[in-house]
């Protein structure tokens, strides 16, 4: 188990995260919050790239900083800005990172082609990466994060720059990889996690806002989400969520806590609705 205990992170006088307590067990955890809300700070602390100002992060009861390389051996990390050597092929690049991770050469020789097949890069295993698209590079990134068969997989904004097809492929891959390991996935794109995350973690005002299953989080707006064709009726005190076109007309989704317009029909709340409502000050 990975436990974040009362962690606070400050940069000078600025507090990025305050008194965060979370326990991670096997499964997919989605860190969902707008940009600049502390997701990457937490991710970097979990990857030992930053240190908490106060509090502790424990892996199986031991402080991850004290564990040092023993902790780094169990994590796989994909940073937000994933760098690579353009003159190398995925095979060369993964062999280099396998060496840095202390993986035996014989094991690496077997594992590298397997992982590249898994991320559907088997046919370009020896092609220089300078010719790769953003999606292909990101898949190399996922393969490298899996090299040491990590018990904790930390992915920071892994779908940034991916097209819709690649995003779907990525989600399926994460679902496959999440068996018997902790997958921590940070994103501000709701659709990335609503289908694959077992739990969604949200931060607000630098503090932990919720840590629950997507269904339970959606339930917090149950009975409060409505839809109407009459766009002009959605004014204060209602909170507009999204608009979509249906049969040439605009259907508005909104949150209504009391006294809803008669023309409105109730809707099933989604994670996106909750996200927009929770972060209404930041998003809209």
């Amino acid at each position: 188990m990975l436990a974040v205990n009362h962690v606070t992170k400050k940069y000078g006088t600025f507090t990025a995260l305050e008194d965060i307590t979370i326990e991670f067990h096997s499964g997919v955890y989605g860190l969902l919050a707008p940009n600049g809300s502390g997701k990457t700070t937490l991710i970097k602390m979990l990857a030992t790239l930053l240190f908490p100002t106060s509090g502790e992060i424990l892996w199986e009861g031991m402080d991850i900083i004290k564990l040092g390389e023993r902790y780094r051996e169990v994590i796989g990390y994909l940073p937000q800005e994933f760098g690579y050597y353009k003159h190398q092929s995925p095979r060369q690049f993964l062999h280099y990172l396998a060496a840095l991770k202390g993986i035996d050469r014989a094991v690496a020789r077997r594992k590298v082609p397997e992982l590249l097949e898994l991320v559907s890069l088997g046919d370009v295993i020896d092609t220089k990466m300078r010719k790769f698209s953003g999606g292909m590079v990101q898949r190399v990134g996922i393969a490298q994060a899996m090299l040491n068969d990590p018990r904790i997989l930390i992915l920071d904004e892994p779908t940034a720059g991916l097209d819709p097809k690649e995003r779907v492929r990525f989600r399926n891959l994460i679902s496959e990889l999440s068996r018997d390991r902790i997958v921590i996935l940070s994103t501000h794109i709701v659709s990335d996690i609503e289908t694959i995350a077992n739990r969604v973690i949200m931060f607000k005002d630098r503090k932990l806002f919720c840590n629950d299953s997507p269904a339970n989080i959606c339930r917090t707006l149950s009975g409060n989400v409505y839809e109407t064709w009459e766009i002009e009726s959605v004014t204060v005190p209602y909170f507009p969520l999204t608009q979509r076109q249906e049969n040439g007309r605009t259907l508005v989704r909104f949150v209504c806590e009391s006294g809803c317009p008669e023309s409105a029909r109730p809707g099933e709340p989604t994670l996106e609705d909750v996200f927009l409502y929770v972060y209404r000050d930041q998003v809209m």
Partner: protein
Amino acid sequence: MNMIEPSREEKERAIALILDKGLTKPKSIWRLLHEMYRALGLRHLFLNTSLPILVSMALMAVFILWNPLPYDQYKNAILFAAAPLFFVFAVLLTETAERMNALFELKMTCKYTIQQIAAFRVLCFSLTGTVLCTLAILFSGFPDAYGVLRALACSLCALYLFSFISLSFMRHFQSKWLRPVPVLLWMAAGPCPILVFGKQWELFLSRVPVAATVTIAVLALALFLREIKMLANAQRRVVHGYAGC
């Protein structure tokens, strides 16, 4: 009072936990460097460093060969100034290249971190610097073996002393703006005395007792190795001045 005796499995688990927590012997610097060499090999340890190394070597060669001062009259002073040149620039350029690389973060989460690799490289750069100094002295045409020994002791004294001071400085002062300071230090301690004191500086270096320079060189080497050990074992937050921190 009856007590439930722990099972054999529970006992073994408890012993393993105690051993794990209490009796883990920290790796020695030599063991760590050897382990890294075996795991990574020179190809991976020096990946993408060939250009900075070549530039540093070229700078040292240019400084010795194209120096405007008459070489025969300023041999000791030029060799003294040139001795740390390769080391300073190789460390600065490889460190800068590593820091600017987008892989930097990822590498810091691996078993062997950039700072440990930097420790290995720094040690290799000092060895290479030693070889380059020796070669430069051997080709300088000193009339006797004593002259060679004097110049070698003097050059190695400059190299190790400077290596120690620059690493120590970088460890204690972590601002990124202070990274070029070792180069400024080299300018202050190497070429500046030649320009300021001229012939007197050369005279001083050619008369300083060999025993004194050898002693200083040995002490500086010991301190430099201690700095490398601290670099390889330091917590990352402590060593912002080094590559990978």
